[in-house]
């Protein structure tokens, strides 16, 4: 699943640690989501949407990442 997390974070001048603190997750989780290695749970996706003040579908795109492995 593709996402715009890195772009949205950069627009707000937040570090991964800043975003992780806002979401109450580890920096590793934010990094893994940004790289497309990990798809967040629905509650976390809602929290991300809330933090950025956007709809989930404006942040996440269900199109498979080219790097996604089976």
């Amino acid at each position, binding site marked *: 699943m593709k996402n715009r997390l890195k772009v949205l974070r950069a627009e707000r001048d937040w570090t991964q640690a800043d975003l992780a*603190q*806002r979401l*109450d997750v580890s920096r*590793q989780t934010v990094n*893994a989501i940004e790289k497309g290695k990990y798809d967040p749970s629905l509650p976390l996706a809602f929290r991300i949407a809330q933090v950025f003040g956007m709809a989930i579908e404006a942040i996440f795109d269900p199109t498979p990442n080219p790097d996604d492995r089976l």
Partner: protein
Amino acid sequence: MNSTDPSLRSPGSSQQRDCRNQKLVLLWSFLWALSFLAVAQGIKREWLSSGVVTFAAVAGSAILGIATVLAYRRFLEETDELRRKIEVEALAVAFGVGMVGGLSYWLLVISGAASETGYAYVFSATIFTHPICVLIGRRRYA
């Protein structure tokens, strides 16, 4: 970063909670391992005089073991979701190693191809599989 931002959670709360829970798991694990070794030595060297004392010592050790399981369960419930995924994947592999390794070795024992003393190695392999898989998982998602 604006510290008055309402979306900002308490600083380092996730890490602090994980750290506290991990310390509790380690503490209970250490106490359980210590009690297990003490009871094992007590039985082997016949320090435990009667059946009642032995039963009480084994029950005490088992209670510490249950406390370890509950502490680990709490850690899993409260930890970050990626960490939980890594831990659960590691548990699945460790369980598989224990089951497949243990039952395969049992077949070797009943066939006479291996001795019962080798169960300790299978047990050790199961114990060490979990932390190794956690490290591999952390690298995979880094």
